[in-house]
């Protein structure tokens, strides 16, 4: 029960911080971090995935509502929400038995880094290709993906470093 409330608060805080803070940074005129996808990384693994898939769709959609982007955030977030388990298997070698005891940041940093970087790049690439909606400015899409990913990852690991308790 405690955990459910925690993730509900996290959901709301991430959406609002994205819409009112991170979306107004515009570093170099156009680079924004998209930190709300931290929800996808932090949400506990479950055998039943319906709730999680629906939540990741809802997370993207709530950002879409504010940013007038139709459904592109929902599309990108849902995609990495679905691919999450696959990359957990590939990078972290965790299977269904390990899910209840799994804690992302108790794992080795290198593996976690690979996992987070892959999902962030996929999300940002889908997001910017859909936002651009044509093949004309493909260099712009790639550059934006790269710069925004670096920004997001920097903020994500910084936040994790600050908010996790030291043993």
């Amino acid at each position, binding site marked *: 029960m405690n955990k459910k409330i925690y993730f509900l608060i996290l959901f709301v805080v991430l959406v609002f911080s994205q819409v009112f803070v991170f979306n107004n940074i515009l570093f170099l005129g156009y680079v924004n971090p998209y930190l709300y996808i931290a929800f996808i990384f932090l949400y506990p693994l479950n055998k039943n995935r319906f709730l999680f898939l629906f939540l990741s769709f809802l997370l993207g959609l709530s950002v879409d509502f504010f940013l007038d982007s139709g459904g592109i955030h929902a*599309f990108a977030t849902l995609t990495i929400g679905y691919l999450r388990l696959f990359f957990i298997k590939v990078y972290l070698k965790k299977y269904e038995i390990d899910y209840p005891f799994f804690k992302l940041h108790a794992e080795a940093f290198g593996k976690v880094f690979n996992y987070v970087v892959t999902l962030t790049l996929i999300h940002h690439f889908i997001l910017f290709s859909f936002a651009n909606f044509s093949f004309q400015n493909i260099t712009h899409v790639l550059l934006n993906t790269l710069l925004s990913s670096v920004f997001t990852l920097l903020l994500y690991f910084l936040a994790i470093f600050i908010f996790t308790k030291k043993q």
Partner: protein
Amino acid sequence: MQQLIYFFQKFKYFLFFLMLQFIALGLSFNNLNFQKSKFVNSANAVTGGFYNKASNISSYFNLKEVNTSLLEENRLLRTQLHQNKYNNIAIDSTIIDTLKYLQKFTYTSAKIINNNYTNAFNFLTINRGEKHGIEKEMAVINSKGIIGVTDNVNANYTRVQSILNENSKLNARLKNSRYFGTLQWNGKDYNTVQLIDIPRQAPIEIGDTIETGGKSAIFPEGILIGKVINVNSNKTVNNAIDVQLFNDMSNLEPVYVVKNLHKIAIQSIENIQDE
């Protein structure tokens, strides 16, 4: 049958994922279509309300600039007012029938509470809606130039399709020679828009002023847009000219929504000719 149930059992997550994915895709495509009304937009009561609250706080930071620009606009309008009086005396011999209904446009003041200018398809949100008489396809302007066209209207808030949207196309002309073309945006620089399909014989110099052409039922005639900064001198197919906007689209606040009272009359005539 058992095979079918087994199939659903095995791929239930993937099918659920696909279903949500199709919904998201549908919403994305729908968002780019100007004719359709949208479910996902920032003009609804919840998002509009939050944006309004945030804008109430952040608007204090550029109060000074907004005041200066409003003062400048007042000065301009006062000057025009006196010119008008003088003209009226000069053409005293013509009879002006004041009972005739001469007004063509009405203006509603509004405030931009959400501004986007970094994407390829940008939208703004303003704090006026159906309650204040806003409808779909009305022009949004400010003292320096054009801003966009209203798109989705809710009770209290309206979404505006910015001119910085790759789907926006509007009629514009050169101020001195009255040759007209279509104004659109290529999605790159938010200070520069493109004027295309201008006739090749039109004399264009760098620094020429571009204004709205008045050949649409949305924008009034002669609203300023920007100045020419780059001429391709007939090297491209559509003869595109780069136009720098007078407006700084990244820093907008008070705007006017223009209602054309003759819109229905104009459109009904245009539709008859089409048939």
